[in-house]
């Protein structure tokens, strides 16, 4: 299957909200410090998603991805999200 030259991709980053305890981030931070890396502050472990889009309608894609991020891809109670289309 050939990929349309106008095909877009949504690149989505989901991170835990600051108020939510992030034991993974804390564990990674501690590990980095133990390894001798200096100047390490708080670490936040989140998720990265790439979604290939078959539409060329940028605005429609933006609305749909935003809706999906809010409804299923992230949980607004504990996570923030941001995304870009390219």
């Amino acid at each position, binding site marked *: 299957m050939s990929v349309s030259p106008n095909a877009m991709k949504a690149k989505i980053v989901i991170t*835990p909200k600051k*108020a*939510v*305890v992030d*034991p*993974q981030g804390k*564990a990674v931070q501690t590990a980095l410090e133990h390894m001798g890396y200096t100047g390490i502050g708080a670490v936040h472990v989140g998720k990265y998603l790439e979604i290939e889009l078959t539409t060329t309608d940028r605005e429609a894609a933006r609305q749909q991805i935003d809706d999906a991020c809010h409804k*299923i*891809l992230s*949980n607004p*109670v*504990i996570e923030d999200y941001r995304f870009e289309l390219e």
Partner: protein
Amino acid sequence: MNFAVLQFPGSNCDQDMVHVLRNVLGHSARLLWHKEKSLGDADAVFVPGGFSYGDYLRTGAIARFSPVMQAVQAFAAQGGLVLGICNGFQILCEAGLLPGALVRNRSLQFRCEHVFLQTVTKDSPFTHCVPDGKLLRVPVAHGEGCYFADEETLARLRANHQVLWRYVNARGEATAAASPNGSLDNIAGVCNESRNVAGLMPHPERASETILGSTDGRLILESMIRALEQRATARAA
């Protein structure tokens, strides 16, 4: 009573739940596959533990959009009793049927052990048969059971007495060490504002037979059965 026990790809406490309802408590119980669109004549619904849809994305995130969960939403909106256990609790939170969310245990460890639960209020169909002061000894088995809600939601939960169970030590004290997961306020289980939907991380179905070391979990299930009987009596009168 007729009970429905939901079954998602990855559920693994569904058979235990049916066993306890049928063989221990003597009621009718059937499994309901996630693609079902109707709950039939169910008097109450159990959302069992496991790893629905492999816990992909987030625990419970995908299960909440299954056809059967749409039926559960409608059932709950009409006042039907729904209890979510472990992954079931996570699903009900994702579905917005319960406030808050469950995140990774603070220890980062999967914890599999017996805990003590304090019943915070008897004012619910899930707790009204628990004797005053009785601590429930029930097992947990989870990696993501740390209850989180923002300050505003927590304040509302406290004001409305929606926290049903807290983790405590054998002396009934809600210490940090008594909690297996680091939940805010040692919260083990909550209910919705209408008090007909509840969820908890511990497994009452694994503490319902003497051979398993504790029968304290039955107090939760029997509370529900009694509540349903009282509803039926009230309807008949």
